[in-house]
């Protein structure tokens, strides 16, 4: 049986599940980046979420916003590269308008939506450019449509939307980031950052369902 919403502490624990999952995904993410980028995406995400684990263990959090900013800052100041800036921005800026205590479907939607706007502002990419936005954008749209549902009901559908988005990147020609000069040669391969975006949501869902 899952959860209608998560407390700050439960959200922190769920983010620890996300961190562990991302660290364990290092190999597949680097492999995906090796196909169309420079092969370091998994190494970077693993480094970033190791920093997240440390910060989450060290600190107590009095608000969801503080929690998410901590995650985002840890990612931004440890990963480097495109994904450090992008995923750091997602969490830091997605945190600004979160409700204080309860991580609900509404909170999820705020997080993804504000994060999406900030990531687009930072990276100047659009959906269709074969980036993590292609998973984030449909996830954010889906979350916005599901704010009436309990978290454990809405979240699986948000994950499904991200997955469709990630799959769609296989048919896109990259026009941002390291993959952009690949042109047509990037066809057939998914975007590594889109896989990461999907996995973050998937691990979050797994944690929410397990409560």
């Amino acid at each position, binding site marked *: 049986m899952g959860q209608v919403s998560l407390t700050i502490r439960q959200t922190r624990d769920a983010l620890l599940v996300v961190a562990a999952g991302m660290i364990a995904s290092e190999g597949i993410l680097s492999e995906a980046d090796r196909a169309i980028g*420079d092969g*370091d995406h998994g190494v970077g995400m693993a480094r970033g979420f190791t920093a997240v684990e440390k910060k989450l263990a060290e600190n107590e959090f009095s608000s969801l916003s503080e929690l998410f900013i901590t995650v985002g800052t840890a990612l*931004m100041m440890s*990963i480097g590269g*495109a994904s*450090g800036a992008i995923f750091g921005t997602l969490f830091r800026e997605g945190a600004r308008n979160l409700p204080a205590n309860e991580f609900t479907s509404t909170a999820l939607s705020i997080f993804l939506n504000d994060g999406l706007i900030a990531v687009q502002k930072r990276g100047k990419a659009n959906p269709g450019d074969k980036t993590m936005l292609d998973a984030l954008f449909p996830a954010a749209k889906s979350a916005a449509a599901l704010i009436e549902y309990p978290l454990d009901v809405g979240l699986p559908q948000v994950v499904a939307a991200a997955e469709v988005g990630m799959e769609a990147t296989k048919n896109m020609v990259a026009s941002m980031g390291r993959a952009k000069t690949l042109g047509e040669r990037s066809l057939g391969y998914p975007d590594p950052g889109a896989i990461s975006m999907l996995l973050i949501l998937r691990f979050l869902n797994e944690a929410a369902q397990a409560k």
Partner: protein
Amino acid sequence: MPNSKKFFNDLSSIVDETLDGLARASNGKLRLLDSHRAVIVSAMPDHKVGLLIGGGSGHEPLFAGYVGKNLADAAVAGNIFAAPTPDIIVEATQAIDKGAGVLYLYGNYAGDNMNFDIAAEMASEMNILIKTVRIWDDVASAALDHITDRRGIAGDLFVVKVAGGAAALLGSLDEVYRVASKARDNTRSIGVAAAAGTFPETGKPTFELPDDEMEIGMGLHGEPGVSRSKMMTADAVANDMVSRILSDLPFQAGDEVCVLVNDLGSTSSAELLIIYRRVDQILHQRGLKIHDTLIGSYCTSQEMAGFSISLLKLDDELRKYYDLPVDSLALVKG
């Protein structure tokens, strides 16, 4: 070559130990900041415009090898092939800001652009003046009408050399920015790879290439190039690469240029000299005047086999800054 054939200690301390070694080798001329990810000149005059360079690691001696007299005042280092994080950039910015502001000079990659931009916003909040010049010298990485999509490769060195001279002699950030931008606009490069280097953390080669093939235009992280073919002779490769560079600016008879033939990792000095021989022949045929020649390992991609050719077109102003004596780990000129 498998990863295990490299001489490292802990894989996670490669960057820190590299910079520590560099600071030690400087005999007191450079020092490390607290993060261990930034190297700065030990003595920096008041009111000087600061020149900050940097990017992902793995291209040694770029960037930290170009911190020194009449060159950069600081270099920041990201993890291998990953742009530095904003906190390190800010740390170095604060260390070299003497009130006249800091010029950020780095290769044009999505990760670098975003991280340096975030740092610039943070520095601005601290009332430090920041200007940014992104280097996009790699003619193979996008069409000329999309020049701001191009990558920065070994031509970085020319821009750093001119910008370093300008930062040493000019008092205003705007002026240094103007000269550095002009040097960037006058620089063109192209690379060729014959075999991949390995990414140390995974032990995997950065790309795959059949045993008898090469790729012109390959990027510093294994980004794809413009022409994959069977291995060609040194002269034939040089012909192809130089013609792509010359037509791009374009360089013309009477132009005065500096030439860099840069090893990407495991290409021998003999090969570089044989390549340079042909470059020199072509440039003379075309009526260009060669002001200075650099040949060696200036900007690498681990043990990649291959090289790049860069040209900087001079005018009187650029020549003045280019000709200043410099002293750093990887570039010395009397």
